[in-house]
């Protein structure tokens, strides 16, 4: 199945939707491609239709913004200007010699059937994914990612457990903890390794964001209301249980990130939701040849118009750096306007998106400050026992990674992978790369993943000639 489209937008989260809308409003024909069953992405994740949720907005912020966006998109879909391909998992985007693009996807929930979309321009809005750093016991059933817990709640309307500890670091922990509590779970503790929010407010870039402060205050109220104990500067040092999680040990962190001796205590729980921030999805961009940059060298580099350095390829949202839904909306909007102009062969007027550009600048500063505040505590890697599994796909332990670094001299992620298989499995290192980097002291570089998702050989063999 091959279709003609002018703009292909990969990812139907805030950035992709805002980009699609801005472009379609200006007469561009858009094909929106997303793996999910419905639009929304991570942030505006919608309950599965079959569940017939009556008030999904109870689980969401900025419901009004979302409604406006969705109504705009639906209008264009009805008018035939936007085609929305749901359940399409994109595994590669290729640029042809005539500088047109082909988007390769796998169709259906089983991802077994190939599909292609042709386009003259591409907007990559593939978002980010969660970073989870390992600790002893993290592979026990009952340990879930913070984002995973939230997705279960928003998408399937189910609780991951009854008595939950939410732990790690980053702004995502607050909504996860309060969301779980509001839905009826007992949140035994919110364990955040960064300093208390009160201290963070001191940072000028953070104080300059009144909306965010109000949001923070709202969450603080929610924490109080649900009597959630917040342990700042604390970390989960071990998860306990034989065949499932029964408790965690948490300990206080000193200023240097090490454990304060004698501070360890046990909290019983059946679920631990952990997360250590987000990382941008860069696979499709990397394979297209886009330059990566950003604070960790793992985000797609864009200019003021959200253009990558590959002609015809734009990027917006968390694929260009972690910054939340509001930033994604601003970037998507700018990208959509730029695309509409450039596809007509004219240079866009940046004044037409001045408000979005201002929001973008502010939010980027804000999130850069947040990222610094929420860095994982120093010394976390030293706390990993040698028998802790680091790469779950290939069952590679911290000890094996240390040996590869020490006695075989592996000093970069690729060499560690070659020597230990860490990162060779199903997730292709998305999960374990940050941990391996931390363990070996090598830089976290973006991996090369020509296949952004596993592709059946039958689909590869049946690829169209061109």
């Amino acid at each position: 199945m091959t279709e003609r489209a002018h703009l292909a937008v990969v990812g139907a989260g805030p950035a992709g939707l805002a980009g699609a809308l801005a472009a379609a409003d200006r007469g561009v024909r858009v094909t929106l491609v997303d793996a999910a069953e419905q639009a929304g992405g991570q942030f505006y994740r919608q309950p599965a239709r079959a569940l017939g949720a009556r008030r999904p907005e109870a689980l969401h912020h900025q419901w009004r913004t979302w409604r406006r966006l969705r109504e705009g998109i639906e209008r264009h879909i009805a008018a035939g200007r936007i085609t929305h391909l749901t359940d399409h998992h994109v595994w590669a985007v290729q640029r042809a010699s005539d500088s047109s693009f082909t988007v390769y996807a796998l169709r259906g929930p089983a991802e077994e059937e190939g599909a292609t979309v042709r386009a003259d321009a591409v907007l990559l809005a593939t978002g980010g994914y969660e970073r989870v750093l390992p600790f002893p016991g993290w592979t026990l059933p009952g340990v879930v990612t913070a984002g995973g817990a939230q997705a279960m709640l928003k998408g399937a309307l189910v609780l991951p457990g009854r008595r939950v500890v939410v732990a790690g670091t980053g702004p995502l922990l607050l909504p996860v903890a309060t969301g779980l509590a509001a839905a009826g779970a007992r949140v035994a503790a919110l364990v955040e390794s960064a300093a208390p929010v009160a201290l963070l407010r001191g940072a000028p870039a953070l104080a300059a964001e009144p909306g965010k402060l109000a949001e923070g205050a709202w969450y603080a109220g929610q924490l109080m209301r649900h009597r959630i104990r917040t342990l700042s500067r604390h970390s989960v040092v071990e998860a306990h249980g034989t065949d499932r999680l029964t408790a965690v040990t948490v300990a206080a962190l000193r200023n240097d990130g090490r454990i304060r001796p004698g501070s360890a205590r046990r909290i019983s729980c059946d679920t631990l939701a952990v997360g250590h921030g987000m990382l941008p999805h860069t696979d499709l961009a990397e394979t297209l040849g886009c330059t990566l940059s950003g604070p960790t060298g793992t985000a797609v580099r864009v200019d003021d118009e959200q253009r990558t350095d590959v002609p015809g390829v734009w990027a917006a949202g968390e694929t260009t750096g972690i910054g939340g839904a509001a930033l994604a909306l601003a970037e998507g909007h700018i990208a959509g306007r730029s695309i509409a102009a450039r596809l007509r062969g004219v240079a866009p007027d940046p004044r037409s998106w001045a408000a979005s550009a201002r929001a973008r600048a502010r939010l980027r500063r804000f999130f850069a400050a947040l990222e610094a505040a929420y860095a994982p505590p120093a010394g976390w890697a030293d706390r990993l026992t040698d028998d802790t599994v680091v790469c779950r796909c290939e069952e590679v332990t911290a000890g094996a990674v240390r040996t590869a670094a020490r006695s075989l001299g592996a000093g970069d992620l690729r060499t560690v992978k070659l020597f230990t298989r860490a990162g060779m499995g199903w997730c292709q290192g998305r999960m374990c790369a940050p941990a391996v980097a931390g363990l070996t002291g090598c830089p976290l570089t973006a991996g090369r993943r020509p296949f952004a998702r596993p592709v059946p050989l039958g689909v590869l063999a049946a690829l169209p000639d061109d």
Partner: protein
Amino acid sequence: MVGAACALYAARAGLDVRVVDRGPVAGGTTGAGEGNLLVSDKEPGPELDLALLSARLWSRLGDELGTAVEYEPKGGLVVAAAPEGLTALHAFADGQRHAGVEAHPVDADQLPFLEPHLATGMAGGVHYPQDAQVMPALAAARLLRVSGARLHTGWTVTGLLRGPDGAAAGVRTDRGDLHAPAVVNAAGTWGGELAALAGVRLPVLPRRGFVLVTEPLPRMVRHKVYAADYMADVASDSAALRTSPVVEGTAAGPVLIGASRERVGFDRSLSLAAVRALAAGAIGLFPFLERVRALRTYAGFRPYLPDHLPAIGPDPRAPGLFHACGHEGAGIGLATGTGQLIAQTLTGKAPDLDLTPFRPERFDTDGGDTP
């Protein structure tokens, strides 16, 4: 890989060895290749002799290092779909047997006993018990470790040091000079550039190859299995894409399918045409693969010389300089023999094989000692 093997055999011959690489261990083509140690794909001649010598040495290293380098003497199975292909294959195998290769014809009805999941309707095949497997990156790292050689990774060679008599006296690097009476060029695909630093010509060129790696599976493929048209392709001079993949199961579970052969310079970008051909070829051999997922694909650049033979031995144009590069698609397999031959020439012993076909200066039309 080749540098690691040279280091090992030179150290075992009593020499003090330093290994310099601008990247990490196995950061070049070695980390991007498969670890097929094949005799089956080589026609009688100098390369086959080197492969047989290498196979013996690999088998000894296998006893010594075993699972640490994932050495597996699993054997190869070459199949032919059509009767004409089978006739050609049998003739080819006859020649190889005379050169010392073990090659056993396998009738069509016997194929399922060797490979239960092979496509039906094949005309027949030949079983090569000497074909084996290693994990290249681990092999390079382990050989270096066992050699005891000092390793300077992250050092780039920028020039050749010369003594008063003009002979090589070490290398200049971006991190300082290293003095040595003998320098071995094991820079693989970049061997030509290194030779140029010494003022001599060695026309090593890159030949791109893609490998497909599937999700982990229970053991479904027992040997190294490939179609008979592979051999025509290795010696082929055509620049067009011709793929006849080797399919094999690995100890870790994934099936490896590789590799394509293209001359496109150092272009790493994904070629869906190459990947499509690999997938189609593999499914042709093992239909069950159709529903199996490829987790990843990667490209490497095989170092090749115009006559498809490596350069091994001393360079008469630059005394003190030795070459061990240009092994094309067989540098893992041929590394041990190459290392042994280099160690022998470094210590003034008679080499196990005649080095004439591998002379590094053979591409100078005037045959002289001008660069």
